[in-house]
């Protein structure tokens, strides 16, 4: 596994990629707040909310199927919850769509609402992550006031995640080749403990080596970044557009239609 696995589209170039990471972060945050503030029966009010994530994906040249697949992968837990709700709320509601009238129970309305909010939230987040390199996002968080300490840990985590996952996968394969699945439970547990324990002590040593390497390259307590974030007019226009759009979705659309 490599960073390609998650960062596949983030290194590309498009109007959305060129936007400032801060603008995108703020836009997606506001979008999510507005999204979950909708009433849980107001399924049809959510329809215009699909515009923003899809637009970001299209203009960012991210295949929509890629984002939709992420939604599917993540859905099991939320699926369990939303399939439970029809059992608890069986009050029928009359719903109308055009001249077509039908009856639907409140539980199904809630289930549809949760499913839509979940899908839209994941789509928006995916759109942001697929158009922003993680390093720039970290820089954006730092400039928006996230403490240096946390931002640095996130950076290290991102840097070493696949290094260590690859290591773990190698060890796991070695264990499985040696027939670990056939061993009695106690042995298997001991094997897991040994593998993770070894990984842990190796990681401890690795973090020391990283620290030494940083010191050797002149690190003095403040990381320097070459990435430049410039909040331009285009970013301001983007943010204003998003806010107007969200206001329209949340208040104007349900009132005036």
């Amino acid at each position, binding site marked *: 596994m490599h960073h390609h696995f998650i960062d596949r589209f983030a290194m590309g170039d498009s109007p959305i990629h060129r936007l400032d990471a801060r603008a995108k972060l703020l836009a997606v945050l506001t979008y999510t707040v507005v999204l*979950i503030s909708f009433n849980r029966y107001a399924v049809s009010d959510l329809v215009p909310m699909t515009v923003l994530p899809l637009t970001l994906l*299209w203009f960012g040249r991210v295949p929509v199927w890629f984002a939709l697949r992420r939604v599917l992968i*993540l859905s099991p*837990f939320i699926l369990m919850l939303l399939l439970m709700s029809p059992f608890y709320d069986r009050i029928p509601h009359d719903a109308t769509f055009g001249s077509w009238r039908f009856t639907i129970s409140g539980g199904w309305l809630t289930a549809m609402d949760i499913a839509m*909010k979940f899908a839209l939230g994941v789509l928006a987040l995916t759109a942001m992550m697929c158009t922003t390199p993680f390093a720039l996002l970290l820089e954006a968080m730092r400039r928006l006031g996230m403490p240096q300490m946390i931002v640095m840990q996130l950076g290290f985590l991102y840097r070493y995640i696949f290094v260590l996952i690859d290591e773990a*996968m190698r060890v796991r394969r070695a264990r499985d080749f040696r027939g670990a699945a056939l061993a009695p439970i106690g042995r298997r547990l001991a094997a897991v403990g040994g593998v*993770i324990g070894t990984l842990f002590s190796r990681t401890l040593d690795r973090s020391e080596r990283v620290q030494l390497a940083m010191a050797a390259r002149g690190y003095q307590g403040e990381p320097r970044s070459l990435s430049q974030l410039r909040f331009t007019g285009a970013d301001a226009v983007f943010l204003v557009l998003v806010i107007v759009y969200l206001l329209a979705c949340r208040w104007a659309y*349900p009132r005036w239609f």
Partner: protein
Amino acid sequence: MTTLILPPLAMHMANELLSVPIAGLTLAVAAILVLIAARRARRATTDDRLPLMGVMGAFIFAAQMINFTLPGMPGTSGHLGGGVLLAILLGPTAGIVTMAAILMVQCLLFQDGGLLALGCNVINMGVIPCLLGWGLYRLVLGPVAKAAAWRQYLAAWLACVVGVTAGAAMVPVEAAVSGVLQVPFRHFLGVMIGVHLVIGLCEGAITFAVIAYLRRVRPELLGLAADDAPVAGRGPGYGVVMASLLGTALLLAGVVSWFASTLPDGLEWSYSQHRYGAVEKAVQNKSPVVLAVDQWQTRWSPMTDYNRRGAPLGELPAAEPNEPESAWPNASGWRSVAGVLGTIITLGILYGLSWWMRKKAV
């Protein structure tokens, strides 16, 4: 073989389980707690260990790859969640900071757990398991430097079961306070605790195995050789342990039991809240639960885009000001059609525009 990976799926909260005020509140609380932990961790671990927590976060991701096939449940395998192990090995503050970093990366890069639910997730999977687990571990362990093996194993196991389950018990509480879920609080709590007892046992088993290995190979990491213990040895005194443990336990017990008693479940609660409303007379033919839900939603929904069946709408004074006034008898239906059509047209235009721009760029 289909493997069911239990812990991450069952505990990451999604945005949809929270209301905006609760999301904001938990985000603020989590941010403050993580900041305090970060400051303390920075003081405890000197500058030469700065990459430690980040790299340890990556270690947890890697350790989650090492699966352990559960006995008696073929096809199901558990793996480490990691919070309690981190707290035991690195101390609670470093554990909290690492877990927060892990959860943020899971949320941003893998979209696992909602952006606004991050506060809840940090509290449920970071703060509570680390504090409670570590406190319990230290309590059972007694003096660290010469702890007996059985005591250490028991402590690790207990810490995992209690830490994980307590964190999971917070999920229904947060959802119930938000008033989003329709699943009754008690059922949800029961399911979460039941499932997470199993997960906690599994996590405990793995943590136990790791501790057993480290005890044999690198005992200094567990603080066993007191003088040159690099990480875990620098533990605070017994009083701090007791205080943190008691604090977390009381908070948890208080919150959960308060809800279990005063908020038997969401529906009953809303029913008892509104049973003396004027609306009761209007809909006498309905069961009390139905009535309660009806009232509850008219109170809390600013716009209702469906019509209540059977209920004489004219007699519900609470609903009046909120209903969109319209001369069109079937306004809500046509409204939704208009919304869907408008959205499709807008999306079509935007798609065309993006397609055109892409062609121009090539």
